[in-house]
């Protein structure tokens, strides 16, 4: 509860009309950002606690959960270089969610297994978009592709998918058409 309250408090502070509309001074923007980031970091611990509780009694604790907050610009150090990854999705909707997961990766061929660990699901591997590639970053990108698959998550529940990199292959599994038309 204490950990959740840090985010709740930051969100409460950010209900001020200046935070809602963006009419605050730049220094205040930085302060709101710091408070919200602290809150999000704390809530990640809570997610870990919840998954630990969901594991069978007497069994192992849930593996350490890692988070990527920059997936919208195809940045994630966790997924970028890994060959064996578990992706857990929690669905806050009160109905089943069908969600296309996009993960930045450096390989070009992957197998994705459903939550039973046996059944494979279709995936695409696409290069990250040229617009994303040109976003200035403090460090170089290690992931130049994105693996995409459709996840199905039950209402107010979670699913785990397994993403495994296949042996290195330069044959991309998509049809590429490249044409630059100067206008």
């Amino acid at each position, binding site marked *: 509860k204490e950990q959740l309250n840090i985010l709740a408090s930051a969100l409460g502070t950010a209900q001020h009309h*200046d935070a809602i*509309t963006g*009419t605050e*001074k*730049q220094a205040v923007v930085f302060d709101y950002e710091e408070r919200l980031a602290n809150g999000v970091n704390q809530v990640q611990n809570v*997610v870990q606690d919840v*998954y630990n509780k969901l594991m069978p009694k007497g069994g192992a604790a849930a*593996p*350490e*959960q890692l*988070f*990527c907050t920059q*997936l919208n*610009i195809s940045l994630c150090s*966790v*997924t970028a270089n*890994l060959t064996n*990854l*578990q*992706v*857990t*999705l*929690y*669905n*806050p*909707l009160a109905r089943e*969610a*069908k*969600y*296309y997961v996009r993960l930045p990766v450096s390989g070009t061929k992957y197998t994705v297994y459903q*939550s*039973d*660990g*046996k059944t494979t699901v*279709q995936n*695409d591997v*696409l290069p990250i*978009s*040229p*617009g*994303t590639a*040109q*976003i*200035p970053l403090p460090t170089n990108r290690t992931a130049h592709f994105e693996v*995409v*698959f*459709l996840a199905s*998550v039950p209402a107010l529940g979670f699913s*785990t998918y397994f993403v495994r990199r296949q042996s290195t292959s330069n044959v991309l*599994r*998509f*049809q*590429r*058409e*490249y*044409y*630059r*038309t*100067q*206008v």
Partner: protein
Amino acid sequence: STDNSIKGKYVRLDFSASGEVSSMTNLKTGLKVPLSQNFFYYEGMTGNNTKGEFQASGAYIFRPQKNEPTKLSLKFFAGIQRGVLVQEAYQQVTNWVSQVYRIYEDKPYVEVEWTVGPVPVADHIGKEVITRYHLDGFENKKTFYTDANGREILERVLNYRPTWQLKQTEPVAGNYYPVNSFISIKDTKKNVQFTVLVDRAQGGTSLNEGDVELMLHRRLLVDDGKGVGEALDERDIDGKGLVTRGTHYLLLDSIENSSRLYRPTAQDIFLTPAISFSTAEVSPVQYV
């Protein structure tokens, strides 16, 4: 390839030879409309005290210098990627504006991922960047619809207020309304509704027949004098202007069917699954 289109099970988007969007088709109903989309920017009003026009465009006030925005023409079409689950088309508009059109196999919408920034201000002109979707021949009769925080849908009529006699002095800004969840236009004669869902609150309007216009990013150089005391010129820690990225979701259907599409889609956008990762070095079967 001469096939300049991307599609899924429910929707198709066609592009012209030069890479501009030309039409959108609902593959379930066969409904097809001519669609174009362009980026523009309004020059922010800097204010002029001597002429009594002191009010500048800023954090509180949107006040363009001119009523017509400057168009940002497409620089080049950077190709199409076709996967089994998703098809994507890439547009580079300027060095600081790019866009991805994306259609997933199983989704009824077109996803438009726009990236804007850093907005250049070396010419000392503050810029307010918009995107404008346009359906040619569409008759929405100066009327469009926006939501109130995802709840009540409100009818907006150009240069009109339902409870008082409006004397419009700001032809652009005076018709901008908050778009929290979506904005839509309807052609009752053709029974077509075009809806744009947003991933964050934005300003939006429909200034011309068949238009849906949304404000994406603002970078201004003058304080609007309403209390903040700073120009709306947000920068990163290195002092560069911000790069902003967001997504629009385009839906096309009949008027009676549209709410069946945009309501669940809005829920999906607002409450996306929370993703976390683990790297236990065990096989999937062992993990289970």
